[in-house]
């Protein structure tokens, strides 16, 4: 991709800083969506968490896995050799290559914002990261999609379902974040 890269290193953020400005990053994501829609289908991530669950569980406890109609339907054929799974597999690969290529592979357990509010205890952050992940995928599966499938792909197709999900998502996320970080009642 030939987007003009501007180094926009924001020193306030200890997290990995962006290399692409917002419009270049948004354009890149939009172009990937357009390519995917032209060549195969809109993009989606969250269903593949179920597929991986199903295939792993089917490997160890085949009867338990087959006993769930939802797993059997989502992880059809108990295989990871699908376009959909490989798309999701590509995400960390591309991210790793991008981080390496720009020397931005960096590790930290407790992010800056979290540290300022909840302290530097890594155990605390990890427990809540787990809880957050649980809620993310539980919610995504109730809704049949996540930020990729609903917000990026779905809204681009003018799907009413995706608009409803995205509005509920942002309302809930903003209220939760402002409450967690103590923003209510002060400017």
């Amino acid at each position, binding site marked *: 991709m030939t987007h003009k890269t501007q180094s926009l290193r924001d020193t306030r953020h200890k*997290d990995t800083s962006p290399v692409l400005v917002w419009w270049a990053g948004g*354009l890149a994501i939009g172009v990937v969506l357009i390519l995917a829609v032209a060549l195969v289908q809109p993009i989606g991530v969250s269903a593949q968490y179920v597929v991986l669950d199903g295939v792993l569980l089917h490997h160890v406890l085949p009867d338990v896995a087959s006993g*769930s109609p939802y797993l059997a339907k989502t992880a059809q054929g108990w295989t990871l050799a699908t376009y959909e799974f490989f798309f999701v597999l590509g995400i960390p690969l591309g991210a790793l290559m991008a981080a390496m290529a720009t020397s931005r592979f960096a590790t930290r357990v407790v992010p800056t914002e979290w540290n300022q509010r909840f302290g530097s205890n890594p155990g605390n952050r990890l427990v809540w*990261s787990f809880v957050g*992940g*649980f809620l993310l995928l539980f919610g995504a599966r109730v809704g049949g999609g996540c930020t990729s499938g609903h917000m990026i792909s779905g809204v681009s197709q003018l799907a009413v379902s995706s608009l*409803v*999900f995205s509005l509920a*998502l942002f309302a809930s996320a903003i209220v939760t974040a402002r409450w967690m970080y103590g923003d209510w009642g002060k400017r």
Partner: protein
Amino acid sequence: MMLWLGLMLGAAFGAALQLSGASSHTAIIRALRLKDLTIIKLIMTAIGVGLIGVHLLDLSGWANMKVKDLYLPGLIVAGLIFGVGFAVSGYCPGTALVAAAEGKPDAWVTVLGGMIGALVFAFMFPDLETLLFSFGQYGPVTIHELLGIQGALLALPLGGFCLWLAAKLPGSGGA
């Protein structure tokens, strides 16, 4: 062939998310706290480009559309739960994979929590199905179908509006 295509497109998506800083916990949380809307500008740009591009493809007959079913109140409950997870973790299911690949251990745990959450949902599904999906089912409806117009007629101006809004919203990073 399809597997390679999937891997390539996925890698391009992962690289775009990584390079644009969408996997940064700080950037996400500051956006949700309404302190720095850079991530919102990014998302609005992606949606604006997507709206215009996807519907231009559709006009040419090249788009492989896949619209998800509308079911109320299930989708609202889903969005509310997802939103709490988004604020608590600071990641979404895709950006957690990106942050995990960048070497962020809290994102590894988010991915693990996600796998467990998806598994619990899978086994609760028969019960949840009757609770959430038994009424308010409308199928894969789109806004332009409801209005009875061609998709591009709405998508092009709306896409333009998203891009305009992305440019107008305040952000940290200048540009």
